[in-house]
């Protein structure tokens, strides 16, 4: 059951939702959002493609295996704690770079990216399996 309209819409929605998910992830520290919601939205973005064009097309979009993303995410949450450990503040004591113009960059971003990837990879690994199995 392929629908041209759904397929075309899905392609547009894919990019929009992916962009939104990244936006949610990035702004999470100061405004509503964060890695968890961002990961869910990104999973939806790919999930829509899987619904419209099939799992194979969605897998091509994702490039990496969802389970790999899951593991990578878990690893990132742990890695993000190491700078704090090295700096002497203790594991997961987040470190920040503050620029003069107010822009700030912290290891929280790495941590949140890890959460994002775990949610994304975890949801998609199930969605793909279930959809591939569908008659």
């Amino acid at each position, binding site marked *: 059951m392929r629908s041209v309209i759904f397929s075309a819409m899905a392609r547009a929605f894919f990019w929009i939702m992916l962009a939104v998910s990244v936006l949610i992830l990035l702004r999470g520290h100061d405004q509503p959002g964060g890695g968890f*919601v961002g990961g869910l939205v990104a999973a939806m973005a790919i999930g829509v493609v899987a619904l419209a064009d099939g799992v194979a097309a969605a897998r091509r979009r994702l490039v990496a295996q969802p389970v790999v993303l899951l593991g990578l995410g878990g690893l990132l949450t742990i890695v993000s704690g190491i700078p704090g450990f090295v700096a002497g503040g203790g594991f997961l004591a987040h470190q920040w770079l503050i620029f003069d113009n107010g822009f700030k960059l912290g290891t*929280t971003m790495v*941590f949140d990216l890890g959460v994002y990837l*775990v949610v994304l990879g975890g*949801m998609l690994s199930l969605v793909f399996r279930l959809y591939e199995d569908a008659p």
Partner: protein
Amino acid sequence: MSLISILLLSALGSVAAWRVGRHVSSGLKHVAALLPIALFACFIFHIEPVASGGVVTDTAAWVPSLGIDLAFRLDGFSLLFALLITGIGSLVTIYATSYFSEADARERARFVFLIHLFMTAMLGTVLSDNLIVMFVFWEATSLTSFMLIGFETAKTEARRAALQSLLITCGGGLALLGAILLIGMELGSFSLAAITARAPELVASPLLPAVIVLLLIGTFTKSAQFPFHFWLPKAMAAPTPASAYLHSATMVKLGVYLLARFDGIFAGVPAYGVILVTFGLLTMSIAAFNAIRATGYKAILAQSTVASLGILVMLIGLDGPVSSVAVIGFILSHALYKAALFFCAGTAIHATHITELRKLGGLAKHLPFTAAAAVLASLSMAGLPPFVGFIAKEYLFEAQLQSSWSAIAVIVAVLVNGVMVAVAGAVSLRPFFRGRGKIEHVHHGETPGLLIGPMLLAILGVVFGIAPHLIVDNLIAPAAGALRGSPVQVSFSLWHGLTPMLGLSAAVVILGIALMWKWNEFHRAIGQMRLVQKIDADRAYYRVVDRVLGTARATTRWLQNGDQRRYTLTVASSLLIVAGYALVTGGPLNLTWSGGEILPFPAIILILAIVGCVVAIRSTSLVTGLVGIGIVGYGSALLFLANGAPDLALTQFAVETLVLVVLMAVLVRLPTDAPKTRSPRESRIDAGIATIFGFLVFGGLATMTAQPFDTRLSDFYGATSYLEARGHNVVNVIIVDYRAFDTVGEVAVVAFATLAVWALLKRRRAGKGS
């Protein structure tokens, strides 16, 4: 090199050797042995400072808030173990590389990798000063030995033995952790050195009996003492190089190591020594008995190892100044000859593919050097002069005669050592010299890699026997001194004059030769004894395991019967009971009607949610029901949004949508109409429980919101969120910063749960596809 860098080198080096070993050509296959040799050299350089009374320490912070530091400490006793671990580790690596010379290079590299990991864990255990750190390494040895015993994964027997050893040693490990935590609670420190210094406080503590019992369970399981003596012979299912390493020098001696460490601490507790001597004597008697009964080549060696461990435990329990020297001497001599004998057994089994000792014979023709090494090692095991085993045995008897123990201990020791002499004869003479022509053809001959280990160890057994001054001041005295806590004068030599010990040694040898003479008769007679066949610790173990699994199966069948409605019913009614109890005991319900006006927006959402509920209940179509539930979910998200929780609302929206997407994938495969599986009576019960549950939640929520809201925590987060964590979104800051460690745990839970579901889905698919 500092101790931490040695351990790091060991850990990283094992990984490096593994990756390299997978690809090297056969000419360079021994390159992996460089790692343990280098480590051995490191410890050789530590002999000098340690022998002159120094103690090497090294500390790095780990969890300072809990008093757990990566604290390492090298004194004479740990140095002896470190040298044995790395020295025999080098020989095992070389031997294993030759042993698996015909196997796939990746398989060989994997085996050597496990051996090296195991070595690292062992080193960490004996070098740790902090008991928690030691425990971590201790458990690592259990895990790696599990993998080594079960290395040949295709063999059922190997898998069973591996699991058995894991269950027993890790179960004991839990008890040990209990002992460590109790000590930490009592003294506020996990440092072994500090605990030794403050021993009187620990001895006076009311927790002392619990500490001792838990410690003994932990060490007895590891060192295969009665009643846990049965796992070690089963562990012979491991490839022989692993057996040589696990069961001679090292892992099983860890329990002995820890017992000896605590002997000084519990010096003021007479019961400690009494228990050790009793269990040591029991273990050595049972093991000696089983050694005569055993049929496999490695099995006999394993039983004699258990007997040796019993001897060591007994020696630790003895009082008197000589016992610490006897312990050290016995550890050293046993490591030398037992590893050599395991190597020889491995070569013989490898060459003939026969494991039964009875079927082997006349191998000296095919394996002359192995035979020579076996003879030398077994002479040391038999405790004949001029071997180091003789000196160790003299000390054993001296320690016994000096102690306050009665003659029973001496008699048992003479009998058991007599059996050891007979075993030594059986494992060297029978396979190699008697029964000429039994074996016509061998599959593999001796190669240098197979010989270097047994030859070197067997020769060292003679060298240290003839020239004990090589090791007395460097190794034995510092090690014994570290055990006793004060310098020890050691006169470690072959000839002590005409002493009672010499008489006992002579008695042992005569007894052993007589036993050897009539070995077959004894073997058969014991094998036919009804009582022996009845008492079988291994069978008892499996009975316990089967009971546990049976109980688990029964409860699973009862709780997890596959009916989702029943699960929900169980959860809901348990919650009802708990919450209902809390409501009843918590005093009268405090429901207040604020009397304010009804807000239109929430009211509309709530009405919509009720409509969703009714749809979900009344609809027979699963899809319609799902939509009904979805309305409730989106409705609550809107309520969150209206009440100033945009993060919660956002997440709720996303989750609801994704749940729909995932569930739709499942639902397309189900019939559109839900089949009626509930009888009217069951439906009535369901409805009743659901209604009461709804009222309970309502009552609970109303009571909770009627209480004045304590804003201290949210005020704290609001005030510090930007200053300390540089974020304005408090919810996110709590997740990624304040409670980041919790989040890591949650991420792990999500990841593992997903992986499990993912794997289950895969299996179903494979079944369908075929």
